Each structure stands twice: as structure tokens, then as C-alpha cells.
């Protein structure tokens, strides 16, 4: 098994629960070093997909390969780390004992527990019972156990829920380090703005179907949503701006106009022609929220 084996391959993955199709012909790969964000509403099939990848539940159709092996096999389990959505531990154990246990289960020396907990910022809480931890601290213990043993594939279900903004930034820094060392990362999230900047590929699930897959740039082009141009009008410049852009919306000294991606440069040229009537210009590409709403609405219809 070489290091370059594709960590995760899903082809035509299908899962049915009685009458409901939870996943329908999902095809997706995650390469070494790639960070893939799985987006979707609650019930879109994100957790189901992850549990199938982990071998926790069986699938009905298609093929799943983790490091070239079936999900749940010894080889797949050895190579995979998981952080469940609301991770839980026995409240009577301390952070150190819990991580030492997980180290032993992965065949690693238990003495490494303190180092791993220090990496997630829990060095001061090592010997306190997990029952006394805050939700954010428990989430960090969850993250710590996912770091054990240099996993080739990390499956992280809503990993930043319960973390404060600083912890979130630390978390993505850790993720970048892991990806730089060649780990493949599949994470789900509701916080679209944070995955926008921190992942290589975005996959959108809607009612069990993979409705879009690509980089944020690809998805922008695909959604074909207009850009927002925000003009700050100069003193006394409003009549000229109104005349030039009858469709603009005014609020105080600001004016907003929407243009298709392809007309962006032409529109900026027209704004430049207004000269001193315009004090400032800002350009906002459609956010992932907009794209996500557009794509999931359009494809689920």
C-alpha cells in the first residue's frame, strides 16, 4: 500500500432506508492532502455518507474504497480517524486517560497522550475529569483522538460546532498541517464562510444527491449569480449616479448595483467614467451562502 493510494473513493454510492433514498449515486474522491467540505441541509445525507465511509452502516449500491480497502476493514480502520458530530466520552475519565486509551487501541504508546492534548490546547486540563469539561473542551478531546497515529483519512462531522472563533482558527491551522503532511480530509459544516477559505473542494449534497462539486471558483461560475457592486457616492454626485445606473438601489450615500460576472469589467469602466461623482467602489462576489442556496434550490427542484 503506497502513500499515494487514493484515501477515499465513492462511486455511485446508494443507501436506502425502507422507502427513503438517503444517498443516491454519489460519486466523490478525496485525494491525499485534499480538504473537502461536504455541505447540505440537515437530513441531506452528510452523516449517513460519513458513517458508510467509516463502515458503521452498510450501503445498498455502488462502491466505497478507503485506502483501496472496503470500509470498516482492518486496513480502512487503521488509516481512518473520525470526529463524530457531538462527540462524547465517559465523564468519569480524565482527558489523559481517555486519550491514552485511544492510543492503546491504535497500538501506540499511551505515554503520548499529554503531547496530543497539548496540541489541541488542553495541556492545563489533562488530569481533570471530562465530565467537568466545557463543550468546546470536549470537542478538542474529540479532535485530539482524531490526530492519533498519522491518519491518512480524517472524517470530521461538524468539527467546529461548539468552538469559539479563536479555537476555530486554531482548528483550521491544525487541519492545514495535517493536509500538508498528506492526509485527506472530509469534513461537513454549516459554517459556510469558514469552509470557503479553508477547503480545496466543496461538495453539496441535497436530498441524498451530490448536486455540485468543485472549487469555490467553479461553483461561482456554475451558480452564475450576479456580483454586487457597492458605490459610495461623492458629495452632490447622486443625480449623476442615478442617471448612469437607473437600476441601482440607494441607501444613504451608498448605491448597490448587481451585474453578471461577464459584465464586471465593463461596469467598472462605466463607474470610472463618473469620475469625481464617485467616492469609492467595492466589489462583492456572491458568497458561498448565496451559491449554496441557489444550487441546492435549483437542483432539488
Amino acid at each position: 500500500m503506497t502513500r499515494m493510494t487514493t484515501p477515499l473513493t465513492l462511486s455511485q454510492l446508494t443507501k436506502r432506508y425502507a422507502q427513503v433514498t438517503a444517498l443516491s449515486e454519489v460519486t466523490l474522491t478525496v485525494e491525499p492532502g485534499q480538504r473537502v467540505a461536504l455541505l447540505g441541509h440537515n437530513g441531506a445525507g452528510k452523516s449517513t455518507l460519513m458513517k458508510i465511509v467509516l463502515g458503521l452502516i452498510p450501503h445498498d449500491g455502488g462502491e466505497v474504497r478507503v485506502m483501496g480497502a472496503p470500509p470498516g476493514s482492518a486496513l480502512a480502520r487503521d488509516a481512518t480517524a473520525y470526529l463524530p458530530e457531538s462527540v462524547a466520552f465517559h465523564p468519569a475519565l480524565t482527558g489523559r486517560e481517555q486519550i491514552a486509551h485511544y492510543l492503546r487501541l491504535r497500538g501506540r504508546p499511551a505515554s503520548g497522550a499529554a503531547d496530543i492534548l497539548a496540541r489541541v490546547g488542553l495541556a492545563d486540563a489533562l488530569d481533570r475529569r471530562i465530565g467537568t469539561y466545557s463543550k468546546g473542551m470536549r470537542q478538542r478531546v474529540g479532535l485530539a483522538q482524531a490526530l492519533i497515529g498519522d491518519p491518512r483519512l480524517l472524517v470530521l462531522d461538524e468539527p467546529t460546532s461548539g468552538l469559539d472563533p479563536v479555537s476555530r482558527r486554531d482548528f483550521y491551522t491544525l487541519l492545514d498541517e495535517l493536509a500538508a503532511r498528506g492526509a485527506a480530509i472530509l469534513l461537513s459544516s454549516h459554517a459556510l464562510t469558514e469552509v470557503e477559505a479553508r477547503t480545496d473542494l466543496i461538495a453539496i449534497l441535497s436530498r441524498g444527491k451530490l448536486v455540485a462539486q468543485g472549487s469555490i471558483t467553479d461553483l461561482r461560475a456554475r451558480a452564475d449569480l450576479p456580483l454586487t457592486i457597492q458605490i459610495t457616492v461623492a458629495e452632490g454626485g447622486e443625480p449623476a449616479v442615478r442617471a448612469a445606473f437607473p437600476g441601482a438601489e440607494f441607501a444613504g450615500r451608498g448605491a448597490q448595483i448587481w451585474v453578471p460576472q461577464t459584465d464586471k469589467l465593463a461596469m467598472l469602466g462605466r463607474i470610472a467614467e463618473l469620475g469625481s461623482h464617485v467616492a469609492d467602489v467595492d466589489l462583492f462576489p456572491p458568497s458561498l451562502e448565496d451559491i449554496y442556496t441557489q444550487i441546492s434550490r435549483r437542483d432539488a427542484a
Partner: protein
Amino acid sequence: MMSRIFAIAAIEMRIALRNRWVAIAVAMMVLFSLVLSAAGSAPTGALGTDRLSVIVASLTSLAVYLVPLVALLMSFDAIAGEVERGTLPLLLTYPVSRTQIVLGKALAHLAVLAMALAAGYGVAAIAAIASDASALNGLPSLWRLFWSSLPLGAAFLGAGYTLSALARRPSGAAGLAIGLWLVAVVLWDLALLAAVVADDGGRFTTSFLPAALLTNPADAFRLYNLSASQATAAAAGLAGAANAIPPFAALASVLLWPLGGLAAAVLAFRRITP
């Protein structure tokens, strides 16, 4: 592979220590043993045996009730508790099989049981020997009682894990465990006793009763210890009626039940989809 079983056993042992299970089990066994030693010492002279042998007969009756109870109390939460706390899905993504998880938990719980029994039986032995030097003659029976209590405990641990996996919620599992204890340890004997009385030495007593006693690990355990220690005189009721059962058959039943119980636990555990 063994290292993963030991890892599970080590963490379960730590949890048992911290939840005071070890302390509770030890205290319970010591307390009951002391009460029995004090109460059971009076009629020794009449029976003509040493003091410890008489106490072993009493301890056997005690163990028939307490060992299954302690085993069920420790085991009912083992799988349902993991399901309810939400710790099971993560554990099952680790390179450890469900069989290893069950065996690891059983090893830890059996160790707790062994500690409690060693403390309880030990106290009884010390009390007997301190007041009667001939009580040393009873040590082999006490040792037999100790080691044969472990497969009895393992059988009920397996049954407890099975109920835990079937119920999937600790409250449901607790109810089932208490129900099983009542049926296997209390009602089973009462029903057989009633049947024996009604049958009055007929076919039921001669052909069905031995089989009915052997199918219950608690009864098999009692038969084995009482017949092997020749202390049947001190035992009443059913055991006296079942003199026909050879000790090796009772021993086989005591030793086979743990395998059946743990196998059932693994099968029930495998049916859980996290």
C-alpha cells in the same frame, strides 16, 4: 489482538474503580460473609464437620444469589450505556472488534468480581480459622467455591451484556437484568420445588428435574459445590432431591454457560447499528 482486549479491560477497570463499583462489590461480599460466619457457626458440633466446611455450605447458598446479582449489576449498562452516552460510534471506528470489546469488558468485570469474592470468602475463612484450627480442613472446599464462582459470574455477565445490547437503553436493560435474576435465581427453584412436591417422586422428579437443574447455571453451581464438598447434609430442598446428578455434569454446565452467555452477547452486540 490480546493487547486491545487488555486495553478495553484496563479502561473498564478504571471506570469501575472510579464509579465505586469495586468498593461496593467488595463491601457487599464482606458484609454478607461476616453475617453468615457469625450466624452459621452455632450448629457445628452437631454436624461433626469443621467450622469452615459448614460456612462454605452457607456461602454457596449466598453466592447463588449474590454472584449473579453483582454480575448483572455490573453488566447491564455495558453496551446500552455506550449507546446512550453516544460513545459507541467513535469506539467502533477504532481497529477493535466487537468481540474484543465484549471480552475486554468481561475481563475487567470478572476481575472486580474476583476481588469482591476473595475479600468476602477470605474474611469468612479468617473468622473460621481464628476460632477453630480444624477449620483448615475446609480450605479446599472454599477454594473450589471461589474459582467456580467465577464461571458463574461470567455466565451472568454474558447474559447482562446480551440484555444490554438487546435493550439499547440502560433503564430497559436494568429492568431486564432484574427480571432475569428473579427468574433464574429465585423463581426457577421455586417452580421446580413446587413441581417436585406436586409430582411426589414421579417421572418429573426422576427424569426432568436433573436436566432442569443443569440448564440453570446457578443451580448447577450449587449442585457442584455441595456434592463435591460432601456437605449436602447442610443443604436443604432441591439439592437433596438431585443427588443423582454426578458432579462432573454440574461442573460441565458451570463451565459451558460462560461461553454461551458471551457468545450471545457478541451476537446481540453485532446487531446494533450505531
